[in-house]
């Protein structure tokens, strides 16, 4: 009895055995609910599965159909437009806000705390607030602009295709800027102040300090932050679902909302899964571009001065 107890104990003290044992709970959940569905999703994209009916393999039929489908093409364009415009503006505004917060300010910790609020509250709920702000009849923005004499009639923010695209992008930027700003601020705080002192003594202007000290040292963290930001934006779902459900005239449908509409509302699981699968190469490309593209600039930073 005693010897078997010690044998078990010794066995449990073997770090390889114990390691696998500790990994088991996380592993079971992730394999069952992440790895398996990921494979299943790819498979479904090649079948004609409907809700309540297992599909048969149909090869590339779904992808061929989607390629010829005007709505899918529009959704692809919308997704790219949404991602590129929102990400660029989020980066610019986020970096600016981070630089402002990095200044010697009173109540700095307080400012930093409230700046992050848009990021931590449920997006679906803040989107409801934007829905009200963008209301065609009672929009506060239209009210203010009309009082200032800028516009004559109320703007139909969510009823016109281009207005709706820009309005959803604005809401996305509102939610994303705090994330970019706070993470870049953390990066800024790791830059030693002595660089700035040295640069000032050498007569560098504030712009030169930013361009030749801040930016190169911040590049690695910018790469990571923007990779995440692009990833979140490209796969965005809830903001669009709440604000427009893809309308008007599918002008704001993103690939995620379209795949939801086709698979869950429409019941065509196979088609929806094919749209979701079609997002993967774009995601990988976005990650590669933003990650490696910016990484390379970090490597070159030593010689790119002249």
């Amino acid at each position, binding site marked *: 009895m005693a010897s078997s107890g010690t044998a078990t104990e010794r066995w*449990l003290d073997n770090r390889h055995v114990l*390691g*696998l044992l500790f*990994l088991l709970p*996380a*592993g079971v*959940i*992730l394999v069952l609910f*992440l*790895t398996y*569905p990921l494979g*299943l*999703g790819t498979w479904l994209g090649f079948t004609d599965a409907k809700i309540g009916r297992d599909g048969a393999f149909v090869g590339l039929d779904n992808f061929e159909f989607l390629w010829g489908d005007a709505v899918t093409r529009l959704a692809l364009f919308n997704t790219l437009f949404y991602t590129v415009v929102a990400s660029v503006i989020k980066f610019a505004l986020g970096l*600016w806000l981070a630089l*402002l*917060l*990095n*200044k*010697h*300010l009173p109540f700095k*910790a307080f*400012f930093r*705390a409230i*700046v*992050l*609020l848009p990021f*931590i*509250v*449920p*997006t*679906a*709920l*803040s989107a*409801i*607030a934007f829905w*009200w702000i963008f209301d065609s009849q009672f929009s*506060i923005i239209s009210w203010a602009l009309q009082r200032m004499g800028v516009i004559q009639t109320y703007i139909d923010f969510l009823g016109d295709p281009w207005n709706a695209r820009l309005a959803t992008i604005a809401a996305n930027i*509102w939610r994303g800027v*705090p994330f970019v700003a706070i*993470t870049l601020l*953390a990066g800024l*705080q*790791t830059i030693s*102040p*002595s660089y*700035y*002192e040295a640069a*000032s003594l050498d007569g560098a202007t504030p712009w030169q*300090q930013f361009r030749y000290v801040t930016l190169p040292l911040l590049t690695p*963290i910018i790469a*990571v932050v923007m990779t995440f930001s692009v990833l979140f934006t490209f796969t965005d*779902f*809830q903001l669009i679902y709440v604000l427009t459900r893809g309308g008007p005239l599918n002008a704001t449908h993103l690939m995620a909302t379209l*795949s*939801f509409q086709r*698979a869950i509302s429409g019941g065509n699981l196979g088609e929806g*899964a094919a749209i*979701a699968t079609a997002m*993967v190469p774009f*995601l990988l490309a976005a990650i590669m571009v933003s990650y490696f593209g910016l990484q390379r600039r970090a490597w070159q930073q030593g010689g790119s001065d002249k």
Partner: protein
Amino acid sequence: MKAAETTAAETPEVADTQGMNYLVSLPRRIVTVYVPLGAFLLVLLFPFYWMGVTTFKPNEELLSREGNPFWVKNPTLAHVNKLLFETSYPDWLWNTMLIAVVATVLSLTCSVLAAYAIERLRFHGSRYVGMAIFLAYLVPPSILFIPLATVVYKLQLFDTRLALILTYPTFLIPFCTWLLMGYFKSIPFELEECALIDGASRWQILVKIILPLAVPGMISAGIFAFTLSWNEFIYALTFVSSSEVKTVPVAVVTELVEGDVYHWGSLMAGALLGSLPVAVLYSFFVEYYVSGLTGAVKE
């Protein structure tokens, strides 16, 4: 711990030696710093103010273009009253709370064990498992929800709270494990070696030495996981269909919007009330939250 300490330690240093900022005159500082910062804060906070104002406005003020819309003349609790006593809002709050707490506890337990195994036990292949965890973190829910819906259906979990409790860990475990790996890394190996020499088992080391030292990391991971679960939308929208099991974000969007007449007052009250729990939790643990956010990005 590490991340929280570095930010705390560096702030004063940065503050009193930041370049030659004292040379910048006050008027210039107002234009280049305070005005833009004020504009940022105004835009970032306005939607919350607007939610609050709308919540307490009577309908006739909401639907009028006259007067000053930025203020409430006759505040009313009618919308809040309607929300709390004429809809299932309290049930939705309870569902969200229950699901978020259970999913967080489950994920945190799995993550502590996994992170300790990967970072400290260094078993065969632990590096690859660490990489796999990071990749799992990059998988977005919006490409996973369709196949996951069929899995949930096959397991007969459709339209139950358990469906959400079991699927939320798919994004919580990778995140928490990644974060905790960073914290475990900062704990000196010597502590463990001493304990091993004194005859402690691996389990005792984990419970009595590593976990107490990793409490700040666990708080960060826990706060973050709770917030992510509370805010989750697409799984809750897809895997649940009855009103009784819905969570707040989904219920406000799908249940409170009836037909063409929007009850803006109760909608905003629902949005405000649903945001409050995370906002309050966040206000108590700002440092932990920020260190979790930046720690996860930095690693």
